[in-house]
């Protein structure tokens, strides 16, 4: 009796997903959908569902419908691998993921090994947000494609902008104590030293990841250092709380950030009253004077109560469709070959390309600041009334960095 029950319980999750329809292209979306990171994962899921809908209304990819299969990885690498296996069983040949470089590393590794061990059943992995540079350098894989600018590229863009801003004299670095934060920190030091040797690095802080509830001691240190500019790769609560503590202590500096626009960020900035003092480096912004993306943004916001946070996801999905068209096949190997070196008119205007050497996508990068909106800035963030304003655009060619990737092709 117990054995049958057990068998039934086991069969439920496994068999339930076994039936795969041949006329749809399933894209496995592996990101947190429960517990800790669920709020971020939900935003991504809805973005991809919106984009799949967009493709389907245009007739799908090679006439096949695109379907997003949500899979909850609980922000855990091991769990991601289980979910990837589940997705493959369900007939998924393309997976996408973004939250957490540790998950991305595990997935890229998994996909590479899986494809090596299961020839003819290859799976592609589209990375839309994990920015650890190693994924397109030492640990690059033919089966991994990244649409987000990696953190080195963003720093290259940011320092290119800082190069031309003479008011910056003393810089304080504060970052999360893990691989991403460390790469931001070391790249900032190296690139600033090369481009603006006169800038003084007055502080270089690493703090524990997502464990600090009061940044007051850190802000006291920043203040004591006499910095005029802070550069930080902090995200999530670590940026929101840092800004909050800074406002409490009356710290008056400019903030150069990677992720101040993330959930909770704009609210914290408005609350701290940091009008156009917080800058963000990103591959697009809602208030860009570019009609197609504005139209898209409008339609998107009409459906959801948040903005288009992932312009790169748009590029990813549209390029996937274009590559399939070019290859005249949805076979992952052929799609991958078509994607290599492909150039593409990106969502926010301008040209981007998928570098063949390392499968890193290059695109124009923007520096923007959050604050009160001008006339031609229709979109605000998180209902604060404040919106992002374009400060500088760094062209694609100015963001290209060398890679150490030695790609192994099948």
């Amino acid at each position, binding site marked *: 009796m117990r054995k049958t029950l057990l068998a039934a319980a086991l069969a439920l999750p496994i068999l339930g997903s076994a039936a795969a329809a041949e006329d749809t292209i399933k894209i496995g979306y592996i990101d947190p959908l429960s*517990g*800790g*990171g*669920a*709020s971020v994962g939900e935003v991504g899921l809805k973005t991809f569902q919106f984009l799949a809908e967009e493709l389907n209304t245009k007739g799908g990819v090679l006439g096949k419908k695109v379907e997003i299969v949500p899979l909850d990885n609980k922000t855990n690498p091991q769990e991601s691998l289980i979910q990837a296996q589940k997705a493959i069983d369900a007939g998924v040949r393309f997976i996408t993921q973004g939250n957490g470089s540790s998950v991305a590393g595990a997935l890229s590794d998994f996909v590479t090994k899986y494809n090596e061990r299961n020839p003819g059943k290859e799976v592609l992995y589209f990375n839309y947000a994990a920015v650890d540079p190693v994924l397109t350098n030492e640990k690059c894989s033919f089966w991994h494609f990244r649409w987000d600018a990696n953190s080195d590229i963003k720093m290259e863009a940011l320092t290119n902008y800082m190069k031309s801003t003479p008011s910056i004299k003393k810089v304080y670095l504060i970052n999360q*104590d893990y691989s991403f934060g460390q790469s931001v920190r070391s790249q900032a030091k190296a690139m600033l030293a090369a481009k603006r040797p006169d800038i003084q690095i007055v502080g270089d*802080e*690493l*703090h*524990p990841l*997502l*464990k600090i*509830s*009061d940044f*007051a*001691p*850190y802000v*006291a*240190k920043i*203040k*004591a250092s006499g910095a005029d500019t802070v550069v930080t790769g902090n995200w*999530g*609560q670590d940026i*929101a*709380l840092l800004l*909050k503590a800074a406002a*409490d*202590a*009356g710290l008056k500096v400019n903030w150069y950030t990677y992720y101040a626009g993330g*959930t*909770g960020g704009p*609210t914290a900035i408005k*609350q701290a009253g940091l009008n156009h003092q917080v800058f963000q480096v990103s591959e697009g912004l809602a208030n860009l004077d570019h009609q197609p993306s504005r139209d898209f943004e409008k339609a998107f916001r009409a459906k959801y109560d948040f903005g288009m946070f992932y312009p790169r996801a748009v590029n990813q999905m549209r390029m996937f469709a274009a590559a399939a068209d070019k290859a005249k096949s949805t076979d992952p190997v052929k799609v991958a070959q078509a994607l290599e070196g492909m150039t593409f008119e990106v969502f926010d205007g301008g040209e981007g390309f998928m570098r063949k050497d390392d499968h890193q996508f290059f695109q124009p990068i923007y520096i923007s600041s959050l604050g009160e909106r001008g006339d031609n800035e229709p979109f605000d963030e998180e209902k604060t009334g404040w919106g992002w304003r374009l400060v500088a655009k760094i062209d694609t060619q100015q963001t290209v960095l060398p890679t150490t990737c030695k790609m192994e092709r099948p």
Partner: protein
Amino acid sequence: MLELIVISSLNGILFGMLLFLMASGLTVIFSMLGVLNFAHASFYMLGAFFGFQISRWVGFWPALVLAPLLAGLIGIAVERYGLRHVHKNGHVAELLFTFGLAFAIEEVVQIIWGKSPVDFRVPAVLDFPAFTIFSTNYPAFKMFMLLVSVVIFLSLLLVLKKTRVGLIVQAALTHPHMVAHLGHNVGRIFMLVFGVGTALAAVAGVIAGPALVTQSNMAALLGPILFVVVVVGGLGSLPGAFIASLMIGLLQTFAVSINTSPASLFGPLDPAWATTWLSDIWNVTVAQVAPVLPYLLLVLVLIFRPMGLLGTRET
């Protein structure tokens, strides 16, 4: 430098007092019921979220009273309908019950208020810098937090010294076995103590929420530290908990402001060692290990002074 010391001391004392608000309840509950309440920090979190929600409806000041009351009532219900029921299954079951409760409360909070921090603001009346020291502002609200903690600390002392329940609690602290002989209304006293203990944690939540962060992981971040406080101070010792709270508060804030690492003291490693595991330890700063320090303290105390700083009994 002096500026850093003054600000860090203030922040450290403040954090320490917050810890004590919670540790006092936890210690008393442990002494009387013999249960280490795993969900104690969850009540701190509930206090913050109730405070946030109520202050949205009727303002911060009513919330400061209502939120702890509400949390205290939930605490009473937990004792009456949960813990008491589990008691017959032994201490492990009780501990596990509170463990499961902490887990469930976090999930419920996530469902209702989400995972990201909520916008719990300092009331406008207190939203100004109390004083400026070496050009750094010290927020008035933090002074208010300090005031509230001190007031509660003093009234707690008064209650313990002057009331009948206070005397019973004191007796329980020193002679836990005596509680069994308290007579017929022991159940009500347990309930009351549990309710007051959880309400105190909730007070800490309401005042810490706007100043720090009101988020669904706040209990999980603080819970283990709270245990460290109680164990380091000595299980069942209120003065011990007080000293340990301040100690850990100061330890954590000061550690953050020290950038010293072995490398900065003794110079960089020999290049032959520079890429080995030793470089990890060599280059780590005190600030980086700040969050680990309380646990290190815990382990050291348990090895060298198992009953805690001021404790009298072993477990």
